[in-house]
C-alpha cells in the first residue's frame, strides 16, 4: 500500500502542472511564429550547383512569401560593433554571386502548418576564379495589417501600416579547393566600469580563399585562476572583422590582475551542417586585462 502525505501530493501536482504549462507554452510559441527558413545557410559547390531550403509556416494563417537575392557581409566599426548592410543593386564586389544565383519559385503562398521547398541554382560564369562567392537570400513575408482601420465616418482620416518581415540567409558558392585560415591582427582588452563589463576586442583577417566561419570561446579568470565567466560568440570573417567579446560581470570578490583565455576555432557551430563547415586553423591566446585601462 502506498501512502502519500498531502505535501507529497501537492508537490507532485505542482510539478505536473508546471510541466504541462511548459509544454503548452512551447506549443503556442511555435504556433505564433512567422515563417521559418531552414537551414540557416545555403552552400553550393562546383559539383553541387543546386540546393534546397525549406520554408515552414507554423501559424494557422496562410503566408505570402517572396524570395530575392541581396548582398551583405558582416562589417565592423573600430569598437567591434557589427552590422550587415543589405544591398539590392549596383554591387561591385567580385566575390558577389547574387547575379548568377536563381531561386525557384520566387513567390509562394505557404499554407497553414505547411511547408514549401525553395530550390537554389548556381549558374556561375565559366571563367570564374577559384574561391568562395557570397550573397544573401532574403525571405520576405507579410502579416498585412492586423488592426483594420477603425470604422469611421466617410470624412475621417485613418491609417493602415503593413508589417513586413525579412530574414536574410547566407548563400555561398565554392569553386576549387577550399582553405579556411584566420589571422589575428591585434587584441585589445579593457575593463568598462560604467557598463560593468570586461571587453576583449579581436581584430581578425581571413587569409584563406573561403570565409572563416567559427566560434570565439572566452574564459575570464582572476589572479587566483578562478573562473569568473565564460562567453561564446559565433563569427563569420569574410575579409577583415573586429569583434568584441563582452563579459558582463561584476569583478567584486575577485582579485586582479584578470586575464582572458581566448580560443578561436571552426569547431562547435551547432547551427550549420558539419558538411558545410570548412575546417580551419585554431587560434589560442591569453590576454591580461590591464587594470589601468579602465574606461
Amino acid at each position, binding site marked *: *500500500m502506498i501512502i*502519500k502525505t498531502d505535501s507529497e*501530493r501537492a508537490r*507532485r*501536482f505542482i510539478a*505536473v502542472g508546471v*510541466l504541462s504549462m511548459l*509544454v*503548452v507554452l*512551447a*506549443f503556442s*510559441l*511555435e504556433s505564433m*511564429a*512567422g515563417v521559418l*527558413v*531552414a537551414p*540557416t*545557410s545555403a552552400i553550393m559547390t562546383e559539383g553541387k550547383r543546386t540546393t534546397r531550403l525549406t520554408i515552414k509556416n507554423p501559424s494557422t494563417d496562410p503566408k505570402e512569401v517572396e524570395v530575392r537575392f541581396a548582398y551583405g557581409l*558582416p562589417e565592423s566599426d573600430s569598437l*567591434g*560593433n*557589427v*552590422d*550587415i548592410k*543589405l544591398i539590392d543593386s549596383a554591387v561591385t564586389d567580385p566575390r558577389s554571386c547574387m547575379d548568377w544565383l536563381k531561386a525557384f519559385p520566387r513567390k509562394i503562398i505557404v499554407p497553414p*502548418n*505547411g*511547408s514549401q521547398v525553395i530550390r537554389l541554382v548556381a549558374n556561375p560564369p565559366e571563367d570564374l576564379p577559384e574561391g568562395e562567392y557570397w550573397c*544573401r537570400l532574403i525571405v*520576405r513575408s507579410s*502579416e498585412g*495589417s*492586423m*488592426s483594420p*482601420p*477603425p470604422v*469611421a465616418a466617410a*470624412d*475621417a*482620416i*485613418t*491609417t*493602415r*501600416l*503593413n*508589417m*513586413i*518581415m*525579412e*530574414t536574410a540567409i*547566407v548563400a555561398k558558392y565554392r569553386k576549387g579547393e577550399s582553405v579556411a585560415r584566420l589571422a589575428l591582427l591585434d587584441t585589445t582588452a579593457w575593463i568598462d566600469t560604467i557598463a560593468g563589463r570586461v571587453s576583449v576586442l579581436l581584430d581578425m583577417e581571413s587569409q584563406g580563399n573561403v570565409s572563416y*566561419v567559427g566560434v570565439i570561446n572566452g574564459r575570464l579568470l582572476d589572479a587566483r585562476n578562478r573562473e569568473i565567466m565564460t562567453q*561564446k560568440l*559565433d*563569427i*563569420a570573417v569574410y575579409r577583415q572583422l573586429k569583434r568584441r567579446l563582452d563579459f558582463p560581470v561584476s569583478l567584486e570578490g575577485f582579485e586582479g590582475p584578470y586575464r582572458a583565455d581566448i580560443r578561436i576555432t571552426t569547431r562547435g557551430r*551547432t*547551427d550549420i*551542417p558539419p558538411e558545410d563547415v570548412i575546417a580551419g586553423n585554431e587560434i589560442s591566446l591569453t590576454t591580461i586585462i590591464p587594470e589601468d585601462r579602465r574606461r
Partner: protein
Amino acid sequence: MPTRPGTASVLTVMVVVAVVMTATVSVRAQGTTNAQATARVLTALSVTASNDLVFGNVLQGVPKRIGTNVDDSTAQFSITGQASATISMVLTLPTYLSRTAGGEQMMLVFESDQVVVDTNATSPSTVTAGDGWLGQNPYSLPSNAVVGAGGQTNVYLGGKVIPSPNQIPGTYEANIILSVAYLGT
C-alpha cells in the same frame, strides 16, 4: 485506507499533458523529412509582427504620436532564434503614407528615440532598461543585438503622423519592414 483527493486531478493534468505533447510532435513532424531537418528548423531565425502601429482616427491638422510603450498601438516585431546569437536588425521606414484611393500623401515621422529592443520579450508597457535597449534610433538599431536568452527578442516601434490642415479624408497606407540576419553567418 485514506482516500487521495488529489489523484483524479493529477491524472487529469497528465492526460492533458499527453494530449498536448502528442499534438506538438505531430505539428513538428509536418513538412519535414527527417529528425535532422526538424532540429534545424527549430534553430532558424524567424520574425513575426505581433502588432502594427495603430494611430486610430486622425484629425486634419493635428499631429498624432504613438510612443513605444502602448501595448495595443505600438508596432511590435518578435524575433525568435538561437538563444544569445548576435543578430543584425534593419528597419526600412516610410516617410509618408499614401491614400489607398487616390495617392495623396500624409507625413509619417519616426523620431530618433522611437525604438525599444527587448531581449526579455516582456511587453511595451512593462519593458525596463534591464531588458535591453530603450530609446534607440529606428534608423540605426543597436549593433550586436542578440536573440534573448529565452530564444526571443521583441522590437517596439512608435511613430507620429502629421496630417495637413486640408488632408483629404480616407485610409492612408504604408509598409514597415524589419530585416534580420544572424551576424555569425
